[in-house]
């Protein structure tokens, strides 16, 4: 619903488009992100402050400053090369796997800085799960796929129960309960991706990171996974990177728009957050012209 504004609020009607663009540029230089706090008091699960990610000397993402909220879905959108995948991989320290990668700034999760010296990345990844773009089940049985996570992190409990619980949460149990010992490679793409989601859920994380989870899937499978996401958000917090703006519009509560800039000092491209707002606002009345151009599909 558009806001109703009383006559006492002259700022409500903003200047025509040209001035808006100039103002947005100026804003962007001082304050990298146009950040809007959520309407209801949502609890933050990640507090990201001044994060920059470097590959060697090249700065891939700069100045990320935002909060990610518990039991909500946050979408990261933007053109290719804008650093959204790089950023999401910071949240579970997957960038550690790239030798030249370096993360500066702080990412605070449940009051702890994920990049503090005494933090074990293995423990981080137990609590913050990840699902990848192309489904990557192990070449083992469905049961062994799900059981792998709990086993390696040393979870106690009845493995059969753990596996069943994970498969139920991913809405896959009924389809596979009679063939748990068959090879996971025999499943369809959509099922494989749900298996990967179940696998990630088996270690009882509280955050699920999803890097373009549906781009390799057909529309029906995509729809089912989107429905799954909306169910899962009751118990988990989800961050999703997506190329598909309509998907971001459909499933997410908050959306962050990243863009690619030409870094003035070095002659390479760097990603930065342009705007971060509740999804409805970003898609009906974005504050920044760059966001407007991107979501309407006219540029970027």
């Amino acid at each position, binding site marked *: 619903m558009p806001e109703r504004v009383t006559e006492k609020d002259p700022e409500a009607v903003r200047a025509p488009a040209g001035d808006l663009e100039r103002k947005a540029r100026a804003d962007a230089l001082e304050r990298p992100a146009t950040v809007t706090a959520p309407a209801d008091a949502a609890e933050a699960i990640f507090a990201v402050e001044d994060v920059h990610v470097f590959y060697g000397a090249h700065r891939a993402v700069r100045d990320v400053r935002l909060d990610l909220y518990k039991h909500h879905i946050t979408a990261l959108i933007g053109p290719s090369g804008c650093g959204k995948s790089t950023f999401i991989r910071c949240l579970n320290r997957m960038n550690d796997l790239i030798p030249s990668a370096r993360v500066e700034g702080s990412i605070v999760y449940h009051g702890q800085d994920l990049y503090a010296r005494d933090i074990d990345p*293995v423990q981080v*990844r137990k609590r913050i799960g990840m699902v990848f773009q192309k489904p*990557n089940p192990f*070449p083992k049985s469905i049961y062994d796929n799900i059981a*792998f996570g709990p086993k*390696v992190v040393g979870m106690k409990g009845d493995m059969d129960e753990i596996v069943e619980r994970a498969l139920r949460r991913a809405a896959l149990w009924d389809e596979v309960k009679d063939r748990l010992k068959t090879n996971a490679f025999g499943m369809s793409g959509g099922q494989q991706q749900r298996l990967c989601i179940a696998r990630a859920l088996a270690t009882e994380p509280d955050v699920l990171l999803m890097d373009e989870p549906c781009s390799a899937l057909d529309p029906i499978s995509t729809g089912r996974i989107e429905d799954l996401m909306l169910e899962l958000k009751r118990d988990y917090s989800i961050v999703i990177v997506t190329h598909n703006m309509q998907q971001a519009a459909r499933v997410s509560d908050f959306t962050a728009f990243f863009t690619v800039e030409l870094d003035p000092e070095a002659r390479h491209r760097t990603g930065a957050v342009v705007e971060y707002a509740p999804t409805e606002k970003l898609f009906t009345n974005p504050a920044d012209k760059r966001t407007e151009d991107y979501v309407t599909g006219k540029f970027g």
Partner: protein
Amino acid sequence: MTGAQIAARAATQTTVIPRRSGSERAREGAFRVLMYGAVGLAFVALAGILADALADGLPVLSWDFLTRFPSRILPDRAGIESAIVGTIYLMVICAVLVVPLGVATAVYLEEYADRDRWWNRLVEINIQNLAAVPSVVYGILGLAFIVRGPLSLGNVLLAGGITLALLVLPVVIIVAREAIRAVPPSIREGALALGATQWQTIWKQVLPGSIAGIATGAILALSRAIGETAPLLVIGAAASPRFNPDGLDSQFTALPIQIFVWTQDPNRAFVERAAGAIIVLMAILLLMNSVAIWLRNRYEQKW
């Protein structure tokens, strides 16, 4: 339009999809001839060798032949038992030494080593070189450092096994690396993202996924080792021993050595015995390669 009409029109008009020109077809034909010719030549050469060996050796084969010890004097009473047993022992020692070492090196190079460090690049280059070094050099290495020198084991079975292990180690490393590399990075990422350590990922996902490739490659490497004569000669394998090796510190012989010794003999009967031994050696090779191929077909991981 009817088919006849289409055909008639096609005859009078230029075709939309041009036919292959005459010269193109000629070139293709010439290439095929060359290709089949090359394959044929290889087959003919192989067949020639086989035929020769079979002609001489087949009559010699008998259970006695396989269970008697060799003789220097009487070809009729010469057998290859000690050579077969020696060969088998050598293979086992070689395998026990080379597989863990080769796989561990491959795991280090693929999973842990930082390619930017100069020492790792040095190791990589050296492995490629070592795989191409002539086997007699390994024999000299074995003689200088294992039979004599620091280890001073003497010309015993263990020394032979170690020398052969060093010979095929580069090949096993290369093959194991290929098999490990064939495991897609997405599997590793998936395992790590679930909270596995790097070692857990390697032990539980990467190695199991590459085991078929490693086994196949190891068997093929061993089948190369089986046929090596020069290094065993240099380190001093016995010729025609009338005993089986009774321990790692025993003298030994192997099929290639026995074959070599017998072919040198002026007595034509011994040369025929050598042909018989060749057939046995080739049968073992065939068996090993078949096992390797069967393993690959049955357990190969298609990603």
